[in-house]
């Protein structure tokens, strides 16, 4: 048992750190939930890709470095520590790509992955529907067989990034007569600019169009854009769902870096004309708990990475992650806003918002954590039933 990095891993860290120091924009990019910011973030994906930093864990043939999980964790730690921009490609890289690696054929991978790695194609997810939030099995949008492909119809919602993205992926009901609701679903990719697609951006709490509704009216999708077997979409999607909740969506580097910035904020105070009240031990304790929580999450992830490297796998345990990081993220940002005193009220768009509004935007972002990727209520049910073995109930 150890926490030691190899010389090769240390070298990888140094390489990543140096590259980031040289390339991370000195001023933060505009919010990626705006048209201007989306374009700037797409450009940043291109920069990352040019030096093979956009998808470090992918095989080299698709633009990656074949990095191990541990190397990926190292890269993420350095990435967040460097204050690098948010990843506009994250829906594709974290949700779609793992599914493609597991279920797609070679032609699909060769066609889809390189443009995802370069930021040329930005993907949106299209999971939810108005009547199917956490209860994905009750999806109603349909895929109807037609010559050479499928016709998609129905409505998707909470499609993150879809306001500005190029393509989307999701589940559609291809067999309305299947005996159980989660059978008869098919996993499909489709373009957002195709005929029959209407994208209606939805503003999140702070008004930015972070997601959209998609209205689909007989949108043609060729057979080659089905992932896995038709009717097997639920099974295909589950690997992605685990990923979203588990290791990849919220890398520990995000929280250790935020906890460090929080500690710095506590020590230095919110603004030039103010001073921190470091004698307020109630606030200090909340900073400490964020520091401890981020470290615990990092160590827990190291343990999981070690387990995977030793041939193990992560199943329902990903629900532990989901609840932990989402609660931690909110506590961390609430503490930051409280440290900011009157400046904590400012919107991230206020000129005078501390840290270019990153605490304010991070707080808004954190509030979604316990909701998406399966609400924390659902996750606690899963933990109780699958990890603790408690009897299922009607909830």
């Amino acid at each position: 048992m150890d926490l030691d990095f190899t010389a090769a891993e240390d070298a990888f860290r140094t390489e990543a750190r140096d590259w980031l120091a040289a390339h991370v924009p000195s001023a933060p990019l505009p919010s990626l939930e705006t048209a201007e910011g989306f374009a700037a973030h797409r450009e940043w994906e291109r920069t990352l890709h040019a030096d093979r930093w956009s998808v470090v864990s992918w095989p080299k043939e698709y633009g990656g470095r074949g990095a191990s999980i541990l190397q990926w964790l190292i890269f993420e730690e350095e990435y967040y520590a460097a204050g690098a921009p948010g990843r506009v490609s994250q829906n594709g890289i974290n949700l779609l790509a793992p599914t493609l690696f597991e279920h797609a054929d070679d032609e699909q991978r060769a066609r889809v992955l390189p443009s995802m790695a370069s930021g040329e194609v930005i993907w949106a997810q299209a999971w939810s529907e108005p009547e199917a939030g956490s209860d994905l099995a009750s999806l109603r949008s349909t895929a109807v067989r037609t010559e050479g492909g499928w016709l998609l119809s129905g409505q998707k919602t909470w499609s993150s990034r879809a306001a500005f993205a190029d393509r989307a992926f999701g589940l559609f009901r291809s067999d309305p007569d299947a005996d159980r609701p989660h059978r008869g679903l098919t996993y499909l990719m489709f373009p957002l600019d195709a005929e029959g697609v209407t994208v209606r951006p939805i503003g999140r709490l702070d008004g930015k169009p972070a997601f959209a509704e998609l209205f689909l009216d007989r949108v043609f999708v060729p057979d080659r854009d089905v992932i896995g077997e038709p009717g097997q979409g639920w099974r295909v999607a589950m690997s992605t769902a685990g990923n979203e909740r588990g290791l990849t969506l919220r890398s520990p580097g995000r929280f250790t870096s935020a906890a460090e910035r929080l500690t710095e904020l506590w020590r230095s105070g919110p603004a030039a004309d103010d001073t921190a009240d470091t004698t307020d031990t109630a606030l200090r304790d909340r900073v400490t708990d964020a520091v401890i929580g981020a470290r615990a999450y990092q160590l827990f992830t190291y343990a999981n990475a070690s387990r995977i490297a030793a041939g193990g796998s992560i199943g329902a345990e990903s629900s532990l992650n989901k609840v932990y990081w989402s609660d931690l993220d909110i506590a961390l940002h609430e503490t930051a806003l409280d440290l900011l005193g009157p400046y904590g009220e400012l919107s991230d768009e206020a000129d005078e918002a501390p840290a270019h509004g990153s605490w304010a935007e991070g707080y808004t972002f954190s509030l979604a954590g316990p909701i998406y990727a399966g609400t924390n209520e659902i996750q606690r049910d899963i933990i109780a039933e699958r990890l603790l073995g408690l009897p299922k109930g009607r909830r």
Partner: protein
Amino acid sequence: MRFLLDDEHRDFARSLDKMLTAAGPAKVARAWAAGDTAPGRAVWAKLAEAGVLALAVPEKHGGLGPLPVELAVAFEQLGRHAVPGPLVETVAAAALLDHLGDATLAADLLPGIAAGTTIASLRAPDSPYALDADAADTVLVTEGDTEGDTGGDTEGATLLLAAGAGPVQPSSDPARRLARPLGGTVLAQGPEVTAAAGHAAEVAAFAVAAQALGVGRTLLLETVEYVGGRTQFGVAIGTFQAVKHRLADTLIALEFAQPLVHAAALALASGDPDAGRAVAAAKVAACEATYTAARTALQLHGAVGYTDELDLSLWIRKARALRTAWGTPSACRTRVLAP
């Protein structure tokens, strides 16, 4: 002892509720957020007509007050309906001018406040911003020793009339527009300004507490209604025990904050020297309960609660802003046990 609202209080609340419901408050708040203050000013006029703004102004200057219990009733309704504008600040400015005892100043400004023709703003001692200073007719600022509890051997504070406001700094509650007051002429100076500023801050914190309670009530009511209708896994999510318990805890927090707000009103009404403590306790309890209500509303509405399209977002975001306005939880807790 009859620690219950009287029939007249309840009638007053009902009539405000009716008037504000008719005004379409979400639309008014959205317009205010976008810089169109006309609908908000129209509501302001109606509030003045209903006597709300006169409640903080003494009779000799055209008011009906000060009447803290009635203010609590009114501000709870203002919170329930998310009415925009520097209502707290105007009432606090009135309290300051009334307490200051400068007859000329009072005669200059108070009648307009009572009549609803003067919208005032006042900068809180712990903030660089004055709420809606760009939309206010009169922006007051106190500087120097504004804490009001340092005894007599001080030069005291200065009261300034600002010459304008800097650029609007948007709040996370879009209906709150923050700006730094600019320049200003001195209106008064001395220990009496310190005392008046301290009293005004108490009145402001008290009004925020009442307003927050109203915000919390709306958040709870709307969420209860939503979870009764929304189905997942074949049943209304309101049948899930986790949902029930979270809403039950929200109700408990609001129900036990309510009497603290009323007790603070009575303490202010009687000139109790411990009123500041009572106000601080009410503020922290009401604002924490309301923030809990906002987190609950957001979580139980799920993604739809996370959108600004849902009018409820106006209340969700206001809950966070009120939590720190006119006294952070930490400052309020410090005050409760201060010697």
